């Protein structure tokens, strides 16, 4: 059985946020405008956390893309009273938008704060709506949403492989964030396939899980390494 997973090499991430815009374009994520954004209601499914260390002039900044971790033991799932969010057989924390009644319990229980709520119906003033991806539904007001690992791309990849009577090969399916990354800091694939790129990355000694001690068993792996070494004399 497939277990979809992602690995993000923080040593390659510059914080450029191309992935954030790519995600919005692919997944019909609405912009909420200045007033709502000020209330903390921006809808990004993927955000770049940034941290600084040190004091001027010895300041360093670190960047960390954070998205739904597609947990193997997801705290968001058991609190949904209507089963609108569930774990699918391939390891995705899936959302059934039409079932969601907007209790927001799931967002409250997510330690990664990656779920966002549609406080209002989405607005795409014409002809901005011409850009909407026909493979992804536009979520109505009152519904929770989050990263799906570009499930429409996963489905499309499986359909195409089925048409060609073959298995999905590693690299066939690329998430929007992965595809746009100029530094190729993101790998995506089947964690159950030991030869997949994402599994290889996950085997790295630099690999770790975010908030791993919560035992949420994330499907997202982060990689971070050592400081730069002096060149040989």
């Amino acid at each position, binding site marked *: 059985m497939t277990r979809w997973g992602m690995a993000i090499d923080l040593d390659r991430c510059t914080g*450029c946020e191309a992935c954030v815009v790519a995600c919005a374009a692919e997944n019909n994520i609405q912009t909420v*405008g200045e007033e709502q954004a000020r209330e903390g209601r921006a809808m990004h499914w993927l955000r770049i956390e940034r941290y600084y260390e040190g004091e001027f002039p010895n*300041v360093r*900044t670190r960047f960390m893309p954070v998205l739904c971790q597609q947990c193997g033991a997801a705290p968001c799932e058991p609190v949904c009273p209507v089963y609108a969010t569930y774990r699918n057989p391939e390891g995705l924390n899936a959302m059934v938008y039409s079932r969601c009644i907007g209790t927001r319990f799931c967002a409250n229980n997510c330690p990664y704060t990656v779920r966002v709520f549609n406080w209002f119906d989405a607005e795409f003033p014409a*002809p901005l709506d011409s850009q909407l991806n026909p493979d992804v539904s536009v979520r109505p007001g009152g519904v929770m949403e989050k990263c799906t690992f570009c499930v429409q791309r996963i489905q499309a990849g499986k359909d195409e492989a089925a048409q060609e009577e073959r298995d999905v090969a590693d690299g066939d399916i690329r998430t929007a964030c992965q595809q746009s990354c100029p530094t190729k800091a993101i790998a995506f694939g089947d964690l159950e396939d030991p030869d997949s790129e994402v599994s290889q990355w996950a085997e790295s000694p630099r690999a770790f*899980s975010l908030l*791993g001690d919560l035992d949420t068993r994330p499907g997202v792996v982060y990689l971070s390494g050592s400081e730069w070494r002096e060149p040989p004399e």
Partner: protein
Amino acid sequence: MSGNDGRRGEPRVTIGRRDFFKVYAAAGVAVLQGCRRRDEEWIESPVRRSTALPGASVWRRSICGQCGAGCEIEVRTVDRLAKKIEGLPEGFVNAGGVCALGHSALQELYHPDRVTEPMRRGPSGELEPVSWEEALEAAATAIMAAPGATTVVSGAPSGPLLGLWRRFAAAVGAQAPVHWQPADLLVEREAARLAFGEATRPAYDLARADYVLSIGAPFLDGWRSAAHFAGAWAELTADRRGKLVQVEARHSLTAANADDWLPVRPGSEGFLARGLAGLLLESGTVGEAERAAYEALYPEAPPDLAATAERCGIDATRIERLAAELSRSRRPMVMVGGSALDGENGVAAGAAGLALNGLLGAVGREGGVFAGVDFGFEDRLAADADAAVPPATLSDRLDGAGESSVLVVSEADPLHAMPELLSAFEGAGIVIALSAFFDDTTLRADLVLPIQTDLERFQAVEPDPVRGIPALLVASPTVAPRGEARHPGDVALALAAAAGSALPWPGFQEAVEAAFSDAFTATRADAESAGALPESLIAGALNARQFVRRTTDAGGLVGTEEMRRAPARPAQVDGEGAASALPDPASLPAPAAPAGVESFTLIPFESLKLGDGRGANRPWLQELPDPLSTVMWGSWAEMATADANRLGIDTGDIVRLTGTAAEIELPAIVLPSVRPGCVGVPLGGGHADFGRYARGRGANVNALMSPDRQVAGAGAFARGGHRVRVERLRRPRRGERPVIYGRGLRQAEEIPVGWAPHDGGKA
């Protein structure tokens, strides 16, 4: 991937090297080469002749025009509507990457406030729709009445389109066009001319260097090609192989990703370069030839370490360490750009920085600096028309403008970039704006001609020479144009015809194809006379027409790796003539602060989301948190913690920045990474219009700059080094509080650690 017809399952057809043809000109420089043949779908007009089923996706190849870099992209279209942009994996510049601004071209295309029909200012003073015929006639009449008083201002990057505007100006009898381009680009070219003998932007082999000193070049912030340099940076730093040191007063995204950041005093970058040269010369690692060449450029002795440290405001030990690391690295390289070039001494600073490459043996070496070469298609289209003049010339032109003068502004917004030009601008007679939006300049136009955005137009682009290999990329439109928008090149040709000075082509595409054909014919003749005509060309009996077809089908002309070369050496180095020494930044006086007033050095900067302001009309970008301050939807002033504490300013407080002629109000963001004495403000705010998402949002930092301050020797307005007074006004009122994403920039101690070894995510 379903719906990806035309991409997956249809491997690209490529033409192997044996099928390439090369025609070497007698000079041995110009090589024309058909290269890759891409999507079959792309070859014919894809917009009107698509055979795709309803609802199915077709991917079109195109070129991103959001900046002048020339990144190649694929556009997913469904039912002839553009849905998504991806980087073309084999893209000449970007190799598959695409930046946030590039993605947002879709929102430029489908912006609800686009100008989609020609408009003319009527008797009521309002702009009213007119037909193209009426608009062109009105424009031509004005130009014909005063051809000598007509000025074209073009924001097109260097290349065929600019060449066409030059040709247009010559044909109608106008003065040479003003090329409205980023100041640091102009300064970089002039610095390269002084240091390398060639006035082109240098190519940097970042990926193969092992130690990169970037003096101000914000190459991860959108400078030149963010996608190209991010990929190269990743190769540089893969497995901690190489090191990046960023010298820049502001903690830019590039500085944030550097292994070492030297926040020098603004304007002292050139001094640092000269000081480093002194340390390198003392180190004993510089060869005699390199030393002699450097001393031919700079006969004066470089400043010593103490003077350098004092002027730059940096600890001497850090400068010493930098010099030591440079001298013992195997493939060190020095880049210059951005803030190092935007002060009045920018040319001197840039040349001093580039000249360090000579001392390090990095010129023309793997992991070093190469010449920025191009095919010269701008000149081919321009024929013998005068070269375009730099932006600062516009001030003089406007000063001399009378009521009969005509200003044709295409794809540029000079009034946003330099608001102080407004009064002079209003003295011009007729203003004709070619624009897709009502921007600060278009609002004051008498005639507005709607133009196509990148994805709607035929494109012929000479990309930024980041690779040191010449190229001319070509792409057909990916979607039909909205409304009555036309290609600016087609408008130029129609205007020339209406003014009775018709040029020999019906449209821009035909002009480019004619240039291809001419290039082919000329180089073939040269090659034949030199006896260097390749067998493949003779056997293929390729003629000019076939060449044009093959070139446009293949997506353009791309040079070979062998064409990468070192820049020529300046005359001083070869001991020729009595060439004068380069301007020595160490001998220039330090900028003085106004007496009696506590003033700050203003650091205006381009963020990678709004660029120089061109991204401000896209909701995706407005709502994108700034990579460092995390601010969305507005402008802000970055201040150092120490300064803010002294002035009693907290994050969110509204402050007033007062320059010589204007003042702006905006919220302060206090950051630990700002150099004390500096205040950073992003470009891109304060548009008078530019659509509903940009209109009146934020403050225009350009208002604090004066057109009187220019970069010496470059004809560019100086963006750096302006002094401003900072006052705290108040706590933010309702609606004034800056929109800070999440909890903003956080201390490393807040990182949610408890990181555990990954367990494969198994439940």
